[in-house]
């Protein structure tokens, strides 16, 4: 690969936000015909580097060379015209349009201003066939397909413009194993055609399976560029995380929790056949003080819906809910909060963050809401709380006046966790608190959850990663097709056991 010249060369890239230096003099090279993984913890600067390359952010320093020409893209579309296509984590297509319309949106072949639909169909078919996706009907509506197919259509759209560079930002986070393989097949085919692929993923296994080369970042600075084959996993993790070797040991310790630590005590929350029409049914769970209840199940099995019922975000119309022995009907989140329940949504951006407010304002929001608008939490107390949790949860940058939207995903998640910890809840419902977060922050959050339970807080823990659920939970409730199908103490339960439950009965 040393013989060819890089298609993208970034030198000394610096990007600064108010109060945050996201990238500090980072170099990056991307060669044609390689899959290059960009590695680093949350907040390391991966997304920022991609956005600097694709014209979403303006750089405050450094140079970008694409195909030998110095470039500075003012907009994403300028980058696209130069042959750099990006597929983001969330599918950015129009679900109500057809596959072919999505692939060619904005660049349909036209004659006298009219779209030539036959030509559209032909082009779409050709592009799909190129990617071994010939089985997809180009005339079908996009939303009728799975997220995986939609992701592949997004890639088809990206390569249709004859992309020299394809940027894949967390493309696999909502795909299952088979779908990941399908995606990888497409990526490999593109690589073999000489496309340079920039791949970002939190899944180490996938990175090692797919990538040829990797660049590692930490805290906005470059750590180095390596051939994937030359860098053992352990070394990579050490580089990404830096000093925290004990964190890794914590990761390996496995089963840290024992089931039923406080089974005799009165349950904090008991649900019996709880359900809501069109949402989930048959939720029967019991959570004791200091217990962690894990909700396991596939995507769309009803994990989030269950959490929303327990929190009153949606109103249950079936079954009963008891809190500390008293039957309650939770009509609003506020009612649940008054009962000492907290809920951190899986949808950080839409349902968690108040983007334009500071870290401090975001942290005290739930407490302030509970006290009412007349009883303002004194500024001094706000500052103390913010400082305390910034330190306790290791939030970076440690600046309570920074706007929360300028923080990385992992740090935003920690702020949201702090928002609830400040209210000192008896029961905390955490829906995917570790999604889209790197190993370091993830382990930190897992340890916090475990420690909170040890202090007597009850926790409902939801994660798509079964391994994580098994490691943390005292009990595991398994959901399938929007019903609860099993509730078992976490004693000697293996991933296979849970998968057997999900796969078995009824299908």
């Amino acid at each position, binding site marked *: 690969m040393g013989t060819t010249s890089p298609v993208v060369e970034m030198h000394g890239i610096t990007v600064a936000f108010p109060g945050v230096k996201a990238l500090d003099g980072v170099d990056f090279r991307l060669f044609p015909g390689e899959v290059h993984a960009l590695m680093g913890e949350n907040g390391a600067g991966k997304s920022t580097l991609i956005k600097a390359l694709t014209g979403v952010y303006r750089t405050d320093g450094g140079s970008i060379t694409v195909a030998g020409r110095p470039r500075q893209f003012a907009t994403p579309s300028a980058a696209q015209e130069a042959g750099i296509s990006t597929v983001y984590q969330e599918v950015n297509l129009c679900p109500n349009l057809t596959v072919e319309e999505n692939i060619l949106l904005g660049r349909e072949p036209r004659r006298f201003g009219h779209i030539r639909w036959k030509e559209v169909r032909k082009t779409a078919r050709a592009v799909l066939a190129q990617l071994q996706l010939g089985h997809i009907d180009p005339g079908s509506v996009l939303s009728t397909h799975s997220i995986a197919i939609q992701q592949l259509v997004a890639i088809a759209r990206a390569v249709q413009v004859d992309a020299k560079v394809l940027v894949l930002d967390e493309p696999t986070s909502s795909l299952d194993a088979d779908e990941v393989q399908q995606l990888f097949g497409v990526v490999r085919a593109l690589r073999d055609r000489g496309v340079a692929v920039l791949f970002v993923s939190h899944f180490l296994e996938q990175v090692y399976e797919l990538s040829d080369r990797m660049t590692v970042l930490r805290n906005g600075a470059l750590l180095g560029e390596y051939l994937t084959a030359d860098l053992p996993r352990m070394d990579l993790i050490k580089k990404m995380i830096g000093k925290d070797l004990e964190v890794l040991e914590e990761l390996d310790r496995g089963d840290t929790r024992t089931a039923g630590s406080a089974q005799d005590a009165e349950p904090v929350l008991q649900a019996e056949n709880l359900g809501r029409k069109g949402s989930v049914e048959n939720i029967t769970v019991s959570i004791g003080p200091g217990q962690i209840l894990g909700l396991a199940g596939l995507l769309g099995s009803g994990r989030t819906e269950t959490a929303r019922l327990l929190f009153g975000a949606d109103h249950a119309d079936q079954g009963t809910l008891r809190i500390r022995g008293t039957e309650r009907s939770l009509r609003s989140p506020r009612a649940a909060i008054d009962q000492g329940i907290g809920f951190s*949504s899986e949808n950080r951006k839409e349902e968690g*963050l108040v983007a334009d*407010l500071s870290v401090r*304002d975001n942290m005290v929001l739930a407490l302030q809401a509970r006290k009412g608008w007349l009883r303002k939490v004194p500024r001094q107390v706000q500052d103390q709380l913010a400082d305390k949790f910034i330190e306790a949860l290791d939030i970076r940058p440690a600046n309570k006046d920074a706007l929360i939207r300028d923080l990385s995903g992992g740090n935003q998640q920690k702020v949201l966790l702090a928002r609830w910890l400040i209210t000192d809840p008896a029961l905390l419902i955490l829906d995917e608190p570790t999604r889209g977060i790197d190993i370091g922050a993830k382990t930190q959050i897992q340890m916090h959850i475990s420690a909170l339970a040890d202090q007597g807080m009850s926790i409902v823990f939801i994660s798509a990663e079964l391994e994580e659920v098994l490691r943390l939970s005292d009990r595991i409730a398994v959901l399938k097709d929007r019903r609860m199908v099993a509730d078992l103490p976490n004693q000697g339960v293996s991933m296979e056991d849970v998968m057997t439950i999900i796969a078995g009965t009824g299908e």
Partner: protein
Amino acid sequence: MSGVLRHRLVWPVLALVLLLLLNQGFRSDFLVVRLQDGHLYGSLIDILRNGAPTLLIALGMTLVIASRGIDLSVGAVAAIAGAVSCTYIYNSDNPGSFSTAASAVALAVAAGLVLGAWNGLLVSVIGIQPIIATLVLMTAGRGLAQLVTDGQIISVSNEPFHAIGSGFFLTLPISILIAAGAFAGAALLTRRTALGTLIESVGINPVASRLSGLSARRILWIVYIFSGFCAAAAGLMISSNVTAADANNAGLFIEMDAILAVVIGGTSLAGGRYSLVGTLVGALIIQTLTTTVYTLGIPPEVTLVFKALVVILVCLLQSPKARTLLRQRRRRVPVLPETKAAV
């Protein structure tokens, strides 16, 4: 924080200063304030006094807009407040007394609060879009005001009532003092309590706010009731100034001036972060514009166009896009010689 705020207000303040200087250029005594018979007089005082109703309404509008809403009914509410107070005075047994004036004011303010609560009901409980919900009262409100006045222009003669719009206290016009009091009141109400942050939170992300246990409903009630209160106070000022209630023309289009004042002041119509100081500057700019039109002797047929040009300019200068463009300009200038030297 204060640095950001100052940055946000740089252009509106600059525009205001430029407008004032422009006037000074045409009339050398423009910036002079005289003390006469214990009262302050001058163009600056006139601007403050004539701008008081707009400022009052814009204060209420700021909080409504921060909550992602808008209140189009303020002009109609102002007309109703004027109609209620004047009709009460007109029909009372003792139309000149202080107690009559006090009761009239109380009635008008109560009407404003009730109408604000009506808007709040439509928006927060029934869930109608703010622009539609307040449009109802914007059109129906003038009809209500006409019903109250029986379609007549009600003239009253009551000294205490007249003082609201044109009296003096401690050398200053009372209307200025009322507006200043409302400004201080709004600032205290939102910043000494948590109301300001909670309004912003609801305006920025209503879903996240609900899930954090915030009762958006209560917050919305408060902002619309406050807006109704401000509109009623402005309506009192307007009708007191002319000692008459005109159901058709009192506060006509004042909602537009108020919204403009808010936008010029840097509060986004998309809701969220707001600036009361910005609104104050915005309201002053609008009033100064009107004064400027008279000072320069601009013919009435081009008055609106002139106003429009200034408003467009200020709004453009505030847009993030224009600002980045300007910044690039500034940055590019020193770079140019270098590149030339390199070539």
